């Protein structure tokens, strides 16, 4: 039963990393500490729905659009380092460049196709809380799945900075589904691969390439 339980957690995690950002109908309850952050998350969901649910657009085109969407909205400055844990300062400049490119493709390939299966899920934003003097905001919400009686908790951890004109700019740092922080989970895999290969960063790059290739093959079939 434990196996099933944790598998469920993982499966939900896989499915919702970006569906958290992407799908569903949004209703907002106004007791926000950071209304701008909530509005930002609403916008993310609406934009992603528009892109991914468009039947006229090919999968290849959706993937390209979605990659831009991820780059624009995920904190690609800090998240890649976070995913490496204690090995964040291990790669050379060349390896860092390779890693960033592979990570973007890895994230995009995984989620574009899969998320199109979840257009009926309803996401409700329930509020937000900030810390670090407002530089970090957690937007809280729920997602209702068709096969579950109770909705699952769904939270977005955002980083906020003021732009030159004083307006806030947000980036997604991590998403928490049913109590699971997804970037933290992914980080365990990255760190494990490097550690089990005697600290070789190249081993991680090879794993990423392999998975991208297998995903591409699966998509083509």
């Amino acid at each position, binding site marked *: 039963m434990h196996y099933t339980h944790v598998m469920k957690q993982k*499966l939900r995690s896989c499915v919702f990393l970006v569906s958290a950002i992407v799908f569903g109908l949004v209703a907002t309850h106004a007791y926000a500490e950071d209304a701008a952050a909530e509005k930002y998350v609403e916008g993310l969901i609406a934009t992603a729905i528009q892109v991914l649910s468009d039947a006229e657009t090919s999968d290849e085109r959706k993937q390209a659009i979605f990659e831009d969407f991820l780059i624009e909205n995920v904190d690609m400055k800090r998240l890649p380092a976070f995913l490496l844990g*204690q090995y964040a300062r291990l790669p050379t400049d060349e390896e860092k460049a390779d890693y960033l490119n592979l990570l973007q493709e890895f994230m995009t390939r995984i989620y574009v196709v899969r998320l199109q299966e979840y257009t009926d899920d309803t996401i409700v934003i329930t509020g937000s809380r900030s810390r670090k003097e407002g530089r970090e905001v957690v937007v809280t919400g729920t997602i209702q799945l068709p096969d579950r009686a109770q909705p699952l908790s769904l939270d977005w951890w955002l980083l906020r900075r003021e732009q030159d004109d004083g307006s806030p700019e947000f980036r997604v740092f991590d998403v928490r589904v049913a109590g699971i922080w997804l970037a933290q989970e992914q*980080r365990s895999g990255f760190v494990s691969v490097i550690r089990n290969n005697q600290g070789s960063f190249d081993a991680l790059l090879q794993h990423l390439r392999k*998975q991208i290739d297998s995903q591409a093959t699966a998509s083509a079939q």
Partner: protein
Amino acid sequence: MLKKIRPKAPYLCVFALLLVLLSGCAGKGDIEVMSPDEREQQIEEIDVLEPFNRYIFEVNIFLDTFFLKPVSTWYAGIVPSVVRKGVGNFFENLKSPVVLANNLLQGETEAAKITAQRFAINSSAGLLGLFDPADGWGYPSQKTDFGQTAGVWGIPHGPFLMLPLFGPSSLRDASGIAVDAVFDPLSYNIIDPSGVLYIFSGWRVVNGRAQFLGRLEDLYQTSVDPYASVRSLYFQSRMKTKNPSVDLDIDALPDIDEYDFSQ
């Protein structure tokens, strides 16, 4: 009657012994409230059987691929999702004695009260648990298990274990499975001459797996090391279910390294 429940006694003795052994390991800290860095280090330290655990992980994947998944696929093909959902509710309701016992053992009397009320409502108005009206009426699930009860009592996880069929666990939580079995009606299949409980146990597993058909492969596509991910998810999920009704504590989030990787 007393004779009939005797098969549980050896399990309880083993559990008692394990608790004593694990008590001697206390002082490692609570892995469920550590920062990601500390947790990773701690998990690495307690996964002393990693090569063996990885082997069992592969065996579990094999069993799922060639047995559980095909059966669940067939099952999902002939049973509508609304029925599968009802069956899931039914089995969940059947585990209420396990939840109630652990609510009480953790000293959570309010949770125990809710669990008892849920069971009464769902068993009657919910048509033997097929529906879950209790949740909508303000009696949410208080799901817990004896592994968590042992955690509340201050017993550490001990070594991480990948169990055949059951999947990720720890010495503490695996031991708790034996205790939970005492309160789980379906675990009495070993004294059921008709074999009906075996069928129900199998049905529970297949019904649970059928909810996630086509998605288990996601595990391997979204992780560079599925074993490590499952291990991490296990401890994160235990953290969540330890305090199911408590909202996210944002002050407990780790500090983000300001290292800009893109430069």
